[in-house]
């Protein structure tokens, strides 16, 4: 759609073409810097609406449990950043705050967002406080009219904040509907993927670095972030660096939903997670610029030290343990990184510190009980067992022992190659990546110019 670029530019107020520096390359840092938000500026906006400054909670009992499973001297201290304490119940308030602030500052009549998740409630909450109108477009139910209960809860929350909610059946044409809404209303596109969105998350990484240092005398050795569209790891990693925590290892964790198709009506309600899963994180890590803005500000490959998956049953187990051992009843998707922490902390020394970077609120629909009851209704087997025998969409296994929780590493080199393939496929016919492009691709994939050159060469071989 030729109109698309024009609508997008008007709705986010960013001329993305200005940042192009090659046939593929663009100046990512300048695109972010031009917004004018450093950590202090973002914090000032966020404090106006009680966003951020969330508690860092040491999980003493889970740490003790992990040490029972670990070799002598192993079992790092585990902390969690209780992001559920934000106004709408998740770290997404950080993301929404700068967008809504900008929308108001620049005189837009309202804000719109395409999201079926926590982000909708965050935008609606921020818009309510700012006195702006709000429209949220959700993919909400399958062709039988069965709503995914977690999304139904988000519908309710958005409506509670006074937003209009457009609920759609399954399919990627949602973005067409969203574009029409932007065109009709002239609202600000509070996209998950603008610079504002990512800069709003930097405060999370910054805060947790400072808090961890205060509490333990050191920066976190490891930060684990639940990973979907990539904003969470990107913003958090950037915030860590800005706080000086340059040696902290950043690990992304996703729920493994391999085999389930994201645009499939049939598969829609066979997923017990609506975010934090590989259905988003694989496509967005291998090609971020599939978003609803021309240049995605969430570019996870630039920041990932490690990328792991866990199973649905492991996350439900971790959620139950968090409630029963730590007295924190929190939402399931945000606990993806907690499940990974069980396995990762076990291998680290006792003196080391692991920070699970978020929690989210829980409640009706948005709860392991609601999700597992839906799974059963959809004919999915729910049982106790070794999670490695589970199968997304067919069998969910709740571990019989915490030692069964493990992480499966995603091969980052393969992800890098996949990213480069996508980038090169997108080249206009007859154009070749220049020096600036090769340098850019090396930064994008956190690899080297030699690696990029090698993959370009391989690609030329396969297509030539």
């Amino acid at each position, binding site marked *: 759609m030729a109109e698309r670029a024009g609508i997008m530019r008007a709705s986010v107020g960013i001329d993305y073409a200005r940042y192009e520096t090659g046939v593929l390359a663009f100046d990512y840092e300048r695109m972010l810097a031009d917004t004018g938000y450093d950590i202090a500026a973002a914090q000032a906006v966020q404090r106006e609406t009680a966003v951020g400054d969330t508690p860092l909670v040491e999980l003493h009992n889970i740490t003790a449990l992990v040490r029972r499973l670990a070799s002598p001297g192993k079992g790092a201290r585990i902390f969690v950043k209780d992001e559920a304490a934000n106004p709408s119940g998740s770290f997404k308030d950080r993301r929404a705050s700068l967008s809504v602030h900008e929308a108001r500052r620049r005189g837009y009549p309202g804000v719109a967002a395409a999201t079926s998740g926590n982000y909708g409630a965050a935008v609606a909450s921020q818009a309510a406080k700012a006195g702006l109108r709000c429209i949220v477009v959700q993919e909400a139910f399958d062709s039988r009219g069965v709503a995914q209960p977690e999304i139904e809860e988000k519908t309710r929350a958005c409506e509670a904040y006074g937003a209009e909610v457009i609920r759609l059946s399954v399919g990627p044409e949602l973005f067409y*509907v969203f574009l029409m809404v932007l065109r009709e*209303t002239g609202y600000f596109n509070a996209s998950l993927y603008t610079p504002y969105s990512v800069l709003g998350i930097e405060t999370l990484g910054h805060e947790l670095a400072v808090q961890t240092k205060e509490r333990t005398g050191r920066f976190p050795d490891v930060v684990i972030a639940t990973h979907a569209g990539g904003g969470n790891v990107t913003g958090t990693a950037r915030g860590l660096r800005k706080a000086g925590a340059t040696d902290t290892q950043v690990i992304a964790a996703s729920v493994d939903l391999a085999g389930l198709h994201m*645009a499939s009506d049939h598969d829609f309600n066979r997923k017990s997670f609506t975010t934090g899963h590989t259905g988003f994180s694989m496509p967005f890590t291998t090609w971020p610029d599939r978003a609803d803005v021309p240049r995605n500000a969430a570019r996870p490959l630039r920041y990932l030290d490690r990328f792991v998956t866990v199973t649905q049953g492991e996350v439900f*187990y971790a959620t139950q343990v968090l409630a029963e051992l730590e007295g924190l009843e929190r939402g399931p998707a945000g606990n993806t990184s907690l499940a990974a922490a069980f396995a990762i902390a076990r291998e680290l020394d006792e003196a080391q510190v692991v920070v699970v970077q978020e929690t989210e609120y829980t409640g009706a629909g948005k709860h392991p009980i609601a999700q597992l009851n839906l799974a059963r209704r959809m004919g999915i087997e*729910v049982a106790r067992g070794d999670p490695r025998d589970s199968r997304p969409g067919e069998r969910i296994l*709740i571990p019989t022992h915490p030692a069964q929780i493990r992480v499966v590493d995603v091969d980052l080199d393969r992800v890098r190659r996949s990213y480069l393939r996508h980038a090169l496929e997108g080249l206009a016919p007859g154009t070749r990546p220049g020096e600036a492009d090769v340098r850019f691709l090396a930064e994008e994939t956190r690899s080297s110019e030699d690696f990029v050159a090698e993959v370009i060469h391989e690609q030329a071989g396969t297509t030539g």
Partner: protein
Amino acid sequence: MTELTPKGTWVEIYRVILPAGERAPQVPEDTAGVPLVMRVKGWLAAPAAPGAEAEIVTPAGRRLRGTLVAVNPAYTHGFGPPIPELSGVGPEVRAILGGEAGDE
């Protein structure tokens, strides 16, 4: 004669956005075989009969038309019965910790 729902009532309308067969080319077969439909809630702009065409004013102030499918629609999501496969987890991990382990 069906009774009209009064103007100002909180309702939901339904509309087909794309019929089956006219879906985006990249959607899988199962999705291509069903329509893309939309549901939106708002206040009735004028009295209307359930099942008939109606106009609403949404919370954002937009006017939208569609079939009136629900009057003051309920939020039906909840929890459902407890999941026995999860209920045992707490006692088990407390037992590993060696604390007062429930029913051990």
